[in-house]
Protein backbone atom coordinates (compact mmCIF):
# COMPACT_ATOMS: atom_id res chain seq x y z
CA UNK A 1 0.00 0.00 0.00
CA UNK A 2 1.52 3.28 -1.03
CA UNK A 3 1.41 6.57 0.83
CA UNK A 4 -0.94 7.98 -1.76
CA UNK A 5 -3.28 5.07 -1.23
CA UNK A 6 -3.17 5.47 2.52
CA UNK A 7 -3.82 9.17 2.24
CA UNK A 8 -6.74 8.59 -0.07
CA UNK A 9 -8.49 6.18 2.26
CA UNK A 10 -7.36 7.94 5.44
CA UNK A 11 -10.82 9.35 6.29
CA UNK A 12 -12.34 5.93 5.73
CA UNK A 13 -9.77 4.21 7.89
CA UNK A 14 -10.24 6.88 10.50
CA UNK A 15 -13.99 6.34 10.76
CA UNK A 16 -13.65 2.55 10.90
CA UNK A 17 -10.95 2.95 13.53
CA UNK A 18 -13.20 5.24 15.50
CA UNK A 19 -15.99 2.65 15.40
CA UNK A 20 -13.66 -0.03 16.70
CA UNK A 21 -12.26 2.36 19.29
CA UNK A 22 -15.76 2.97 20.62
CA UNK A 23 -16.27 -0.76 21.13
CA UNK A 24 -12.94 -0.95 22.92
CA UNK A 25 -13.77 2.03 25.13
CA UNK A 26 -17.04 0.35 26.02
CA UNK A 27 -15.15 -2.75 27.09
CA UNK A 28 -12.80 -0.75 29.30
CA UNK A 29 -15.46 1.49 30.85
CA UNK A 30 -18.76 -0.37 30.39
CA UNK A 31 -21.95 1.67 30.18
CA UNK A 32 -20.29 5.06 30.28
CA UNK A 33 -22.50 6.55 27.60
CA UNK A 34 -21.31 10.07 28.19
CA UNK A 35 -17.71 9.10 27.55
CA UNK A 36 -18.74 7.23 24.40
CA UNK A 37 -20.59 10.30 23.21
CA UNK A 38 -17.63 12.57 23.83
CA UNK A 39 -15.20 10.22 22.09
CA UNK A 40 -17.54 9.85 19.12
CA UNK A 41 -18.16 13.58 18.74
CA UNK A 42 -14.54 14.56 19.16
CA UNK A 43 -13.55 11.77 16.82
CA UNK A 44 -15.94 12.90 14.16
CA UNK A 45 -14.80 16.49 14.41
CA UNK A 46 -11.24 15.26 13.93
CA UNK A 47 -12.59 13.13 11.08
CA UNK A 48 -13.87 16.25 9.37
CA UNK A 49 -10.40 17.69 9.72
CA UNK A 50 -8.92 14.53 8.22
CA UNK A 51 -11.26 14.86 5.25
CA UNK A 52 -10.17 18.46 4.75
CA UNK A 53 -6.48 17.48 4.98
CA UNK A 54 -6.73 14.38 2.80
CA UNK A 55 -8.39 16.34 0.04
CA UNK A 56 -6.79 14.60 -2.89
CA UNK A 57 -6.15 15.45 -6.50
CA UNK A 58 -8.46 12.90 -8.02
CA UNK A 59 -6.01 10.22 -9.09
CA UNK A 60 -7.27 6.70 -8.62
CA UNK A 61 -5.69 4.41 -6.08
CA UNK A 62 -5.81 0.62 -5.66
CA UNK A 63 -5.57 0.21 -9.38
CA UNK A 64 -8.37 2.72 -9.92
CA UNK A 65 -10.81 1.08 -7.52
CA UNK A 66 -11.04 4.10 -5.26
CA UNK A 67 -10.58 7.78 -5.86
CA UNK A 68 -10.41 10.82 -3.67
CA UNK A 69 -11.71 13.58 -5.91
CA UNK A 70 -13.91 16.62 -5.29
CA UNK A 71 -17.02 14.45 -5.27
CA UNK A 72 -15.58 12.14 -2.63
CA UNK A 73 -14.65 15.23 -0.66
CA UNK A 74 -18.15 16.70 -0.87
CA UNK A 75 -19.85 13.42 0.02
CA UNK A 76 -17.47 12.69 2.88
CA UNK A 77 -18.33 16.03 4.44
CA UNK A 78 -22.04 15.33 4.10
CA UNK A 79 -21.74 11.81 5.55
CA UNK A 80 -19.64 12.96 8.48
CA UNK A 81 -22.14 15.73 9.15
CA UNK A 82 -24.91 13.13 9.15
CA UNK A 83 -22.97 10.97 11.60
CA UNK A 84 -22.15 13.90 13.84
CA UNK A 85 -25.72 15.19 14.00
CA UNK A 86 -27.17 11.72 14.57
CA UNK A 87 -24.77 11.06 17.42
CA UNK A 88 -25.63 14.41 18.97
CA UNK A 89 -29.35 13.68 18.82
CA UNK A 90 -29.27 10.05 19.89
CA UNK A 91 -28.49 10.18 23.64
CA UNK A 92 -31.72 11.96 24.49
CA UNK A 93 -33.65 9.06 23.02
CA UNK A 94 -31.45 6.12 23.98
CA UNK A 95 -30.74 7.03 27.59
CA UNK A 96 -34.29 7.01 28.94
CA UNK A 97 -34.94 3.74 27.16
CA UNK A 98 -31.89 2.03 28.60
CA UNK A 99 -30.32 1.45 25.19
CA UNK A 100 -26.52 1.47 25.11
CA UNK A 101 -24.71 4.21 23.25
CA UNK A 102 -21.56 2.28 22.34
CA UNK A 103 -23.08 -0.28 19.98
CA UNK A 104 -25.27 2.42 18.49
CA UNK A 105 -22.39 4.74 17.70
CA UNK A 106 -20.16 1.92 16.46
CA UNK A 107 -22.83 0.49 14.18
CA UNK A 108 -23.67 3.95 12.88
CA UNK A 109 -20.02 4.63 12.10
CA UNK A 110 -19.70 1.35 10.24
CA UNK A 111 -22.67 2.37 8.14
CA UNK A 112 -21.11 5.78 7.55
CA UNK A 113 -17.86 4.16 6.48
CA UNK A 114 -19.91 2.19 3.95
CA UNK A 115 -21.40 5.42 2.68
CA UNK A 116 -17.95 7.02 2.43
CA UNK A 117 -16.71 3.98 0.56
CA UNK A 118 -19.49 4.38 -1.98
CA UNK A 119 -18.64 8.05 -2.34
CA UNK A 120 -15.15 7.30 -3.61
CA UNK A 121 -15.61 3.91 -5.22
CA UNK A 122 -14.74 3.56 -8.88
CA UNK A 123 -15.13 -0.15 -8.97
CA UNK A 124 -18.42 -2.00 -9.19
CA UNK A 125 -17.46 -4.60 -6.60
CA UNK A 126 -16.33 -1.92 -4.18
CA UNK A 127 -19.62 -0.11 -4.80
CA UNK A 128 -21.52 -3.27 -3.93
CA UNK A 129 -19.44 -3.82 -0.82
CA UNK A 130 -19.92 -0.22 0.22
CA UNK A 131 -23.61 -0.62 -0.26
CA UNK A 132 -23.70 -3.71 1.93
CA UNK A 133 -21.51 -2.06 4.54
CA UNK A 134 -24.01 0.81 4.47
CA UNK A 135 -27.23 -1.18 4.72
CA UNK A 136 -26.34 -4.09 7.02
CA UNK A 137 -25.64 -1.82 10.00
CA UNK A 138 -28.74 0.12 8.90
CA UNK A 139 -30.94 -2.94 9.39
CA UNK A 140 -29.52 -3.40 12.83
CA UNK A 141 -30.00 0.22 13.75
CA UNK A 142 -33.62 -0.01 12.66
CA UNK A 143 -34.11 -2.86 15.14
CA UNK A 144 -31.94 -1.23 17.76
CA UNK A 145 -34.77 -0.91 20.30
CA UNK A 146 -34.93 -4.67 20.32
CA UNK A 147 -37.52 -4.94 23.08
CA UNK A 148 -39.86 -2.69 21.12
CA UNK A 149 -42.14 -4.65 18.82
CA UNK A 150 -42.39 -1.85 16.29
CA UNK A 151 -38.65 -1.42 16.03
CA UNK A 152 -38.02 -5.09 15.31
CA UNK A 153 -40.98 -5.27 12.94
CA UNK A 154 -39.60 -2.34 10.97
CA UNK A 155 -36.15 -3.91 11.04
CA UNK A 156 -37.24 -7.26 9.66
CA UNK A 157 -39.30 -5.67 6.91
CA UNK A 158 -36.37 -3.45 6.02
CA UNK A 159 -33.95 -6.35 6.16
CA UNK A 160 -35.97 -8.80 4.08
CA UNK A 161 -36.90 -6.34 1.36
CA UNK A 162 -33.44 -4.79 1.45
CA UNK A 163 -31.73 -8.12 0.96
CA UNK A 164 -34.14 -8.95 -1.83
CA UNK A 165 -33.25 -5.72 -3.59
CA UNK A 166 -29.53 -6.29 -2.95
CA UNK A 167 -29.80 -9.62 -4.74
CA UNK A 168 -31.59 -7.93 -7.64
CA UNK A 169 -28.95 -5.22 -7.76
CA UNK A 170 -26.13 -7.74 -7.66
CA UNK A 171 -27.67 -9.67 -10.52
CA UNK A 172 -27.68 -6.48 -12.53
CA UNK A 173 -24.02 -5.93 -11.67
CA UNK A 174 -23.24 -9.47 -12.81
CA UNK A 175 -24.74 -8.75 -16.23
CA UNK A 176 -22.74 -5.56 -16.50
CA UNK A 177 -19.56 -7.42 -15.65
CA UNK A 178 -20.34 -10.13 -18.11
CA UNK A 179 -21.01 -7.64 -20.85
CA UNK A 180 -18.12 -5.26 -20.27
CA UNK A 181 -15.57 -7.69 -18.86
CA UNK A 182 -14.44 -5.34 -16.11
CA UNK A 183 -15.38 -4.08 -12.71
CA UNK A 184 -13.62 -0.75 -12.99
CA UNK A 185 -15.92 2.19 -13.56
CA UNK A 186 -13.58 3.74 -16.11
CA UNK A 187 -13.26 0.51 -18.11
CA UNK A 188 -17.00 -0.11 -18.01
CA UNK A 189 -17.66 3.37 -19.36
CA UNK A 190 -15.15 2.81 -22.14
CA UNK A 191 -16.59 -0.59 -22.99
CA UNK A 192 -20.05 0.86 -23.22
CA UNK A 193 -19.07 3.69 -25.57
CA UNK A 194 -20.89 3.30 -28.80
CA UNK A 195 -23.17 0.43 -27.79
CA UNK A 196 -26.07 2.72 -26.92
CA UNK A 197 -29.01 3.55 -29.09
CA UNK A 198 -31.61 1.39 -30.78
CA UNK A 199 -30.96 -2.27 -30.60
CA UNK A 200 -29.18 -2.19 -27.28
CA UNK A 201 -28.22 -5.69 -26.29
CA UNK A 202 -31.02 -7.39 -24.36
CA UNK A 203 -28.64 -8.59 -21.67
CA UNK A 204 -27.48 -5.06 -21.06
CA UNK A 205 -31.06 -3.79 -21.05
CA UNK A 206 -32.13 -6.31 -18.44
CA UNK A 207 -29.01 -5.51 -16.48
CA UNK A 208 -30.00 -1.85 -16.51
CA UNK A 209 -33.51 -2.79 -15.37
CA UNK A 210 -32.13 -4.83 -12.47
CA UNK A 211 -29.68 -2.10 -11.47
CA UNK A 212 -32.34 0.60 -11.68
CA UNK A 213 -34.73 -1.45 -9.57
CA UNK A 214 -32.04 -2.11 -7.02
CA UNK A 215 -31.02 1.51 -6.55
CA UNK A 216 -34.63 2.68 -6.75
CA UNK A 217 -35.23 0.54 -3.69
CA UNK A 218 -32.28 2.02 -1.82
CA UNK A 219 -33.32 5.61 -2.47
CA UNK A 220 -36.96 4.67 -1.71
CA UNK A 221 -38.40 5.60 -5.08
CA UNK A 222 -41.97 4.58 -5.85
CA UNK A 223 -42.89 1.73 -6.53
CA UNK A 224 -39.94 0.30 -4.61
CA UNK A 225 -40.64 2.37 -1.51
CA UNK A 226 -42.79 0.01 0.55
CA UNK A 227 -40.23 -0.56 3.23
CA UNK A 228 -39.82 3.14 3.98
CA UNK A 229 -42.91 4.03 6.02
CA UNK A 230 -42.77 0.91 8.18
CA UNK A 231 -39.05 1.01 8.77
CA UNK A 232 -39.12 4.74 9.55
CA UNK A 233 -42.08 4.50 11.89
CA UNK A 234 -40.71 1.54 13.79
CA UNK A 235 -37.10 2.64 14.18
CA UNK A 236 -35.91 4.56 17.21
CA UNK A 237 -36.40 8.21 16.26
CA UNK A 238 -32.71 9.20 15.91
CA UNK A 239 -32.28 6.14 13.69
CA UNK A 240 -35.25 7.23 11.62
CA UNK A 241 -33.55 10.57 11.14
CA UNK A 242 -30.38 8.81 10.08
CA UNK A 243 -32.22 6.39 7.78
CA UNK A 244 -34.00 9.24 6.08
CA UNK A 245 -30.76 10.90 5.03
CA UNK A 246 -27.76 8.57 5.33
CA UNK A 247 -28.75 5.63 3.15
CA UNK A 248 -30.60 7.95 0.81
CA UNK A 249 -27.69 10.30 0.11
CA UNK A 250 -25.34 7.31 -0.05
CA UNK A 251 -27.61 5.58 -2.54
CA UNK A 252 -27.57 8.75 -4.62
CA UNK A 253 -23.79 8.66 -4.37
CA UNK A 254 -24.01 5.14 -5.73
CA UNK A 255 -26.15 6.43 -8.57
CA UNK A 256 -23.57 9.13 -9.30
CA UNK A 257 -20.72 6.63 -9.43
CA UNK A 258 -22.64 3.90 -11.22
CA UNK A 259 -25.15 5.57 -13.51
CA UNK A 260 -23.52 8.93 -14.05
CA UNK A 261 -19.96 7.64 -14.39
CA UNK A 262 -20.04 4.01 -15.46
CA UNK A 263 -23.34 3.88 -17.31
CA UNK A 264 -23.27 7.44 -18.68
CA UNK A 265 -22.87 6.20 -22.27
CA UNK A 266 -26.26 4.51 -21.92
CA UNK A 267 -27.99 7.52 -20.40
CA UNK A 268 -30.35 7.89 -23.32
CA UNK A 269 -31.60 4.42 -22.45
CA UNK A 270 -32.20 4.93 -18.75
CA UNK A 271 -33.43 8.53 -18.72
CA UNK A 272 -37.04 7.54 -19.40
CA UNK A 273 -37.13 5.24 -16.41
CA UNK A 274 -35.73 8.00 -14.19
CA UNK A 275 -38.26 10.54 -15.44
CA UNK A 276 -41.16 8.18 -14.71
CA UNK A 277 -39.77 7.18 -11.34
CA UNK A 278 -39.26 10.82 -10.38
CA UNK A 279 -42.79 11.82 -11.35
CA UNK A 280 -44.60 9.03 -9.53
CA UNK A 281 -42.26 9.19 -6.55
CA UNK A 282 -42.92 12.87 -5.92
CA UNK A 283 -46.62 12.54 -6.46
CA UNK A 284 -47.31 9.44 -4.41
CA UNK A 285 -45.03 10.54 -1.60
CA UNK A 286 -46.78 13.87 -1.24
CA UNK A 287 -50.31 12.56 -1.67
CA UNK A 288 -49.99 9.89 0.96
CA UNK A 289 -48.10 12.19 3.32
CA UNK A 290 -51.18 14.41 3.30
CA UNK A 291 -53.18 11.72 5.06
CA UNK A 292 -50.74 10.68 7.78
CA UNK A 293 -51.30 11.34 11.46
CA UNK A 294 -48.04 9.86 12.65
CA UNK A 295 -45.19 12.34 12.35
CA UNK A 296 -42.55 9.73 11.60
CA UNK A 297 -44.72 8.11 8.95
CA UNK A 298 -45.53 11.52 7.49
CA UNK A 299 -41.85 12.41 7.32
CA UNK A 300 -41.23 8.99 5.78
CA UNK A 301 -43.58 9.75 2.92
CA UNK A 302 -42.14 13.25 2.72
CA UNK A 303 -38.68 11.72 2.36
CA UNK A 304 -40.03 9.63 -0.51
CA UNK A 305 -41.20 12.84 -2.13
CA UNK A 306 -37.76 14.39 -1.65
CA UNK A 307 -36.25 11.39 -3.40
CA UNK A 308 -38.44 12.37 -6.32
CA UNK A 309 -37.11 15.93 -6.32
CA UNK A 310 -33.54 14.68 -6.26
CA UNK A 311 -34.33 12.35 -9.14
CA UNK A 312 -35.41 15.45 -11.08
CA UNK A 313 -31.79 16.61 -10.91
CA UNK A 314 -30.62 13.23 -12.19
CA UNK A 315 -33.20 13.29 -14.97
CA UNK A 316 -31.97 16.75 -15.95
CA UNK A 317 -28.45 15.37 -16.24
CA UNK A 318 -29.57 12.39 -18.29
CA UNK A 319 -32.02 14.29 -20.44
CA UNK A 320 -29.70 17.12 -21.38
CA UNK A 321 -27.15 16.70 -24.15
CA UNK A 322 -23.78 15.52 -22.87
CA UNK A 323 -21.55 18.41 -21.89
CA UNK A 324 -24.36 20.96 -21.81
CA UNK A 325 -24.71 23.33 -18.87
CA UNK A 326 -28.05 21.73 -17.99
CA UNK A 327 -26.39 18.34 -17.50
CA UNK A 328 -23.96 19.82 -15.03
CA UNK A 329 -26.63 21.94 -13.36
CA UNK A 330 -28.69 18.80 -12.79
CA UNK A 331 -25.86 17.13 -10.91
CA UNK A 332 -25.08 20.30 -8.97
CA UNK A 333 -28.72 20.58 -8.03
CA UNK A 334 -28.79 16.97 -6.91
CA UNK A 335 -25.72 17.46 -4.72
CA UNK A 336 -26.96 20.75 -3.29
CA UNK A 337 -30.31 19.12 -2.62
CA UNK A 338 -28.64 16.25 -0.78
CA UNK A 339 -26.70 18.63 1.46
CA UNK A 340 -29.68 20.87 2.16
CA UNK A 341 -31.96 17.90 2.76
CA UNK A 342 -29.48 16.44 5.24
CA UNK A 343 -29.68 19.44 7.51
CA UNK A 344 -33.36 20.22 7.29
CA UNK A 345 -34.60 16.65 7.60
CA UNK A 346 -32.23 15.69 10.40
CA UNK A 347 -33.27 18.89 12.15
CA UNK A 348 -36.94 17.98 11.91
CA UNK A 349 -36.27 14.52 13.27
CA UNK A 350 -34.17 16.03 16.04
CA UNK A 351 -37.15 18.03 17.27
CA UNK A 352 -39.25 14.85 17.18
CA UNK A 353 -36.50 13.15 19.18
CA UNK A 354 -36.43 15.94 21.73
CA UNK A 355 -40.19 15.65 22.05
CA UNK A 356 -39.86 11.94 22.74
CA UNK A 357 -37.07 12.34 25.26
CA UNK A 358 -39.37 10.99 27.93
CA UNK A 359 -40.56 7.47 27.29
CA UNK A 360 -44.20 7.02 26.43
CA UNK A 361 -44.49 9.98 24.07
CA UNK A 362 -45.98 8.66 20.86
CA UNK A 363 -45.15 9.89 17.40
CA UNK A 364 -48.63 11.16 16.68
CA UNK A 365 -48.75 14.65 15.23
CA UNK A 366 -50.95 15.54 18.19
CA UNK A 367 -47.87 15.46 20.41
CA UNK A 368 -46.88 18.72 18.76
CA UNK A 369 -49.94 20.48 20.16
CA UNK A 370 -49.01 23.80 21.65
CA UNK A 371 -45.28 23.25 21.17
CA UNK A 372 -44.94 26.86 20.05
CA UNK A 373 -46.00 27.85 23.54
CA UNK A 374 -44.47 25.04 25.55
CA UNK A 375 -41.04 25.33 24.00
CA UNK A 376 -40.85 28.43 21.81
CA UNK A 377 -37.34 27.75 20.58
CA UNK A 378 -38.09 24.19 19.53
CA UNK A 379 -41.26 25.44 17.89
CA UNK A 380 -39.42 28.09 15.90
CA UNK A 381 -36.75 25.61 14.84
CA UNK A 382 -39.30 22.99 13.80
CA UNK A 383 -41.11 25.66 11.81
CA UNK A 384 -37.84 26.57 10.14
CA UNK A 385 -37.12 22.96 9.19
CA UNK A 386 -40.66 22.41 7.95
CA UNK A 387 -40.61 25.60 5.89
CA UNK A 388 -37.36 24.49 4.38
CA UNK A 389 -38.80 21.06 3.59
CA UNK A 390 -41.74 22.83 2.00
CA UNK A 391 -39.40 24.93 -0.05
CA UNK A 392 -40.38 28.35 1.25
CA UNK A 393 -37.67 30.90 0.47
CA UNK A 394 -35.17 31.89 1.64
CA UNK A 395 -34.41 28.55 3.27
CA UNK A 396 -32.07 25.86 2.00
CA UNK A 397 -34.97 23.75 0.75
CA UNK A 398 -36.12 26.49 -1.56
CA UNK A 399 -32.86 26.67 -3.45
CA UNK A 400 -32.54 22.95 -3.54
CA UNK A 401 -35.88 22.71 -5.32
CA UNK A 402 -35.24 25.72 -7.53
CA UNK A 403 -31.88 24.30 -8.54
CA UNK A 404 -33.13 20.92 -9.72
CA UNK A 405 -36.25 22.38 -11.29
CA UNK A 406 -34.32 25.01 -13.22
CA UNK A 407 -31.95 22.34 -14.45
CA UNK A 408 -34.91 20.25 -15.57
CA UNK A 409 -36.45 23.20 -17.39
CA UNK A 410 -33.14 23.85 -19.08
CA UNK A 411 -32.73 20.22 -20.08
CA UNK A 412 -35.84 20.46 -22.22
CA UNK A 413 -37.97 17.69 -23.68
CA UNK A 414 -39.81 15.32 -21.37
CA UNK A 415 -37.66 16.39 -18.48
CA UNK A 416 -39.26 19.83 -18.58
CA UNK A 417 -42.60 18.24 -17.82
CA UNK A 418 -41.01 17.01 -14.61
CA UNK A 419 -40.44 20.63 -13.65
CA UNK A 420 -44.17 21.27 -13.79
CA UNK A 421 -44.88 18.12 -11.79
CA UNK A 422 -42.32 19.20 -9.23
CA UNK A 423 -43.83 22.68 -8.87
CA UNK A 424 -47.31 21.26 -8.42
CA UNK A 425 -46.02 18.79 -5.87
CA UNK A 426 -44.19 21.48 -3.96
CA UNK A 427 -47.46 23.38 -3.74
CA UNK A 428 -49.34 20.37 -2.41
CA UNK A 429 -46.59 19.46 0.04
CA UNK A 430 -47.09 22.71 1.93
CA UNK A 431 -50.28 21.37 3.41
CA UNK A 432 -48.93 18.50 5.40
CA UNK A 433 -45.89 20.36 6.59
CA UNK A 434 -48.00 23.29 7.69
CA UNK A 435 -50.37 20.93 9.48
CA UNK A 436 -47.58 20.40 11.96
CA UNK A 437 -47.14 24.16 12.23
CA UNK A 438 -50.87 24.44 12.89
CA UNK A 439 -50.59 21.87 15.66
CA UNK A 440 -47.67 23.75 17.20
CA UNK A 441 -49.14 27.23 17.07
CA UNK A 442 -52.87 26.82 16.76
CA UNK A 443 -53.71 24.08 19.23
CA UNK A 444 -53.54 24.07 22.97
CA UNK A 445 -51.14 21.67 24.61
CA UNK A 446 -52.72 18.87 26.63
CA UNK A 447 -52.33 19.29 30.38
CA UNK A 448 -50.15 16.23 30.74
CA UNK A 449 -47.74 17.27 28.00
CA UNK A 450 -44.21 16.09 28.75
CA UNK A 451 -41.43 18.66 28.72
CA UNK A 452 -38.82 18.43 26.01
CA UNK A 453 -35.32 17.26 26.69
CA UNK A 454 -32.70 19.87 26.20
CA UNK A 455 -29.33 18.32 26.78
CA UNK A 456 -26.29 20.12 25.44
CA UNK A 457 -25.64 17.66 22.61
CA UNK A 458 -29.23 18.08 21.45
CA UNK A 459 -28.92 21.87 21.58
CA UNK A 460 -25.65 21.86 19.73
CA UNK A 461 -27.01 19.52 17.08
CA UNK A 462 -30.16 21.57 16.61
CA UNK A 463 -28.10 24.72 16.31
CA UNK A 464 -25.93 23.10 13.66
CA UNK A 465 -28.92 21.81 11.70
CA UNK A 466 -30.64 25.19 11.87
CA UNK A 467 -27.45 26.95 10.86
CA UNK A 468 -27.13 24.74 7.81
CA UNK A 469 -30.75 25.24 6.86
CA UNK A 470 -30.54 29.01 7.12
CA UNK A 471 -27.05 29.41 5.72
CA UNK A 472 -27.63 27.31 2.61
CA UNK A 473 -30.69 29.43 1.99
CA UNK A 474 -29.35 32.90 2.69
CA UNK A 475 -25.82 32.40 1.47
CA UNK A 476 -25.88 29.31 -0.72
CA UNK A 477 -22.51 30.48 -2.00
CA UNK A 478 -20.90 28.74 0.97
CA UNK A 479 -21.59 25.36 -0.58
CA UNK A 480 -22.39 25.84 -4.25
CA UNK A 481 -18.75 26.05 -5.42
CA UNK A 482 -17.99 22.80 -3.59
CA UNK A 483 -21.00 21.15 -5.20
CA UNK A 484 -19.95 22.52 -8.58
CA UNK A 485 -16.48 21.15 -8.21
CA UNK A 486 -17.93 17.79 -7.20
CA UNK A 487 -20.21 17.74 -10.22
CA UNK A 488 -17.33 18.68 -12.50
CA UNK A 489 -15.30 15.79 -11.13
CA UNK A 490 -17.99 13.45 -12.43
CA UNK A 491 -18.03 14.83 -15.93
CA UNK A 492 -15.28 14.03 -18.41
Amino acid sequence: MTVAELLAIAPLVFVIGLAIALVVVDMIRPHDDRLIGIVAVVGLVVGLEVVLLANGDGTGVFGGAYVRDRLTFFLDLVFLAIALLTILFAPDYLRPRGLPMAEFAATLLFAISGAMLIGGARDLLVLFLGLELLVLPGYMLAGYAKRDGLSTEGAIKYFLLGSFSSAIFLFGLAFTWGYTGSTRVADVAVALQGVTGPGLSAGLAIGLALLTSGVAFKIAAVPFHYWTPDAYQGSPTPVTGYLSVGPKVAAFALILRLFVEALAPLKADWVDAIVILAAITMTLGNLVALTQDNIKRMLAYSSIAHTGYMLVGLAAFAGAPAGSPAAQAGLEGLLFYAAAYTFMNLGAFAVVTALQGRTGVTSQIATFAGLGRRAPLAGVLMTLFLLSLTGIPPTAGFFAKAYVILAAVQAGGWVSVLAVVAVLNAAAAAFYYLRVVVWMYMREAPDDAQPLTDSWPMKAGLAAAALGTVLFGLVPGVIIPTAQAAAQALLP
Partner: protein
Amino acid sequence: MSQSLDSYLALSALLFAVGTFGFLARRNAIAMLMSIELMLNAVNLAIVAFGAFVPSLRGDASVIALVVMAVAAAEATVGLAIVIAIYRNRRTPLVDEYTQMRE
Protein backbone atom coordinates in the same frame (compact mmCIF):
# COMPACT_ATOMS: atom_id res chain seq x y z
CA MET B 1 -23.90 -27.83 -23.23
CA SER B 2 -21.46 -27.75 -20.39
CA GLN B 3 -19.22 -25.76 -22.72
CA SER B 4 -21.76 -23.03 -23.37
CA LEU B 5 -22.20 -19.85 -21.37
CA ASP B 6 -25.89 -19.69 -22.19
CA SER B 7 -26.77 -22.89 -20.39
CA TYR B 8 -25.14 -21.74 -17.16
CA LEU B 9 -26.74 -18.33 -17.37
CA ALA B 10 -30.13 -19.89 -18.01
CA LEU B 11 -29.62 -22.16 -15.02
CA SER B 12 -28.72 -19.12 -12.97
CA ALA B 13 -31.84 -17.28 -14.15
CA LEU B 14 -34.06 -20.21 -13.23
CA LEU B 15 -32.47 -20.58 -9.82
CA PHE B 16 -32.99 -16.86 -9.28
CA ALA B 17 -36.66 -17.27 -10.18
CA VAL B 18 -37.06 -20.19 -7.77
CA GLY B 19 -35.55 -18.06 -5.04
CA THR B 20 -37.84 -15.19 -5.94
CA PHE B 21 -40.84 -17.46 -5.71
CA GLY B 22 -39.79 -18.64 -2.28
CA PHE B 23 -39.28 -15.07 -1.13
CA LEU B 24 -42.68 -13.98 -2.38
CA ALA B 25 -44.65 -17.00 -1.23
CA ARG B 26 -43.22 -18.19 2.07
CA ARG B 27 -44.54 -16.83 5.33
CA ASN B 28 -41.70 -17.82 7.59
CA ALA B 29 -38.97 -15.19 7.95
CA ILE B 30 -36.25 -17.81 7.93
CA ALA B 31 -37.67 -19.46 4.82
CA MET B 32 -37.59 -16.05 3.16
CA LEU B 33 -34.00 -15.65 4.24
CA MET B 34 -33.19 -19.02 2.72
CA SER B 35 -34.83 -17.93 -0.50
CA ILE B 36 -32.60 -14.87 -0.56
CA GLU B 37 -29.61 -17.14 -0.15
CA LEU B 38 -30.80 -19.09 -3.19
CA MET B 39 -31.01 -15.85 -5.16
CA LEU B 40 -27.50 -14.85 -4.12
CA ASN B 41 -26.25 -18.26 -5.15
CA ALA B 42 -27.92 -17.80 -8.51
CA VAL B 43 -26.05 -14.56 -8.97
CA ASN B 44 -22.82 -16.19 -7.93
CA LEU B 45 -23.39 -18.91 -10.47
CA ALA B 46 -23.79 -16.30 -13.20
CA ILE B 47 -20.61 -14.56 -12.07
CA VAL B 48 -18.55 -17.74 -12.00
CA ALA B 49 -19.99 -18.72 -15.40
CA PHE B 50 -18.90 -15.40 -16.85
CA GLY B 51 -15.48 -16.02 -15.35
CA ALA B 52 -15.21 -19.35 -17.09
CA PHE B 53 -16.12 -17.97 -20.49
CA VAL B 54 -14.97 -14.34 -20.53
CA PRO B 55 -11.18 -14.30 -20.69
CA SER B 56 -10.78 -10.86 -19.14
CA LEU B 57 -12.81 -11.93 -16.11
CA ARG B 58 -11.14 -15.26 -15.56
CA GLY B 59 -9.60 -14.73 -12.15
CA ASP B 60 -11.78 -11.78 -11.18
CA ALA B 61 -15.00 -13.74 -11.24
CA SER B 62 -13.77 -16.19 -8.65
CA VAL B 63 -12.63 -13.40 -6.37
CA ILE B 64 -15.97 -11.64 -6.77
CA ALA B 65 -17.79 -14.87 -6.01
CA LEU B 66 -15.78 -15.32 -2.84
CA VAL B 67 -16.53 -11.77 -1.78
CA VAL B 68 -20.23 -12.28 -2.46
CA MET B 69 -20.19 -15.38 -0.27
CA ALA B 70 -18.68 -13.39 2.55
CA VAL B 71 -21.33 -10.74 2.09
CA ALA B 72 -24.00 -13.43 2.16
CA ALA B 73 -22.59 -14.72 5.41
CA ALA B 74 -22.68 -11.25 6.94
CA GLU B 75 -26.20 -10.75 5.69
CA ALA B 76 -27.32 -14.06 7.18
CA THR B 77 -25.78 -13.12 10.52
CA VAL B 78 -27.62 -9.83 10.63
CA GLY B 79 -30.87 -11.33 9.39
CA LEU B 80 -30.89 -14.14 11.88
CA ALA B 81 -30.10 -11.74 14.71
CA ILE B 82 -33.09 -9.64 13.72
CA VAL B 83 -35.29 -12.73 13.41
CA ILE B 84 -34.32 -13.84 16.87
CA ALA B 85 -34.95 -10.36 18.27
CA ILE B 86 -38.42 -10.13 16.80
CA TYR B 87 -39.21 -13.72 17.78
CA ARG B 88 -38.63 -12.69 21.39
CA ASN B 89 -41.27 -10.00 20.99
CA ARG B 90 -43.86 -11.69 18.87
CA ARG B 91 -43.38 -15.40 19.52
CA THR B 92 -43.87 -16.21 15.84
CA PRO B 93 -41.54 -16.36 12.87
CA LEU B 94 -44.41 -15.76 10.43
CA VAL B 95 -43.72 -12.46 8.78
CA ASP B 96 -47.23 -11.69 7.61
CA GLU B 97 -48.28 -11.51 11.23
CA TYR B 98 -45.98 -8.56 11.75
CA THR B 99 -48.52 -5.96 10.68
CA GLN B 100 -48.64 -3.49 13.52
CA MET B 101 -47.54 -0.81 11.11
CA ARG B 102 -49.46 -0.26 7.92
CA GLU B 103 -51.05 2.35 5.67
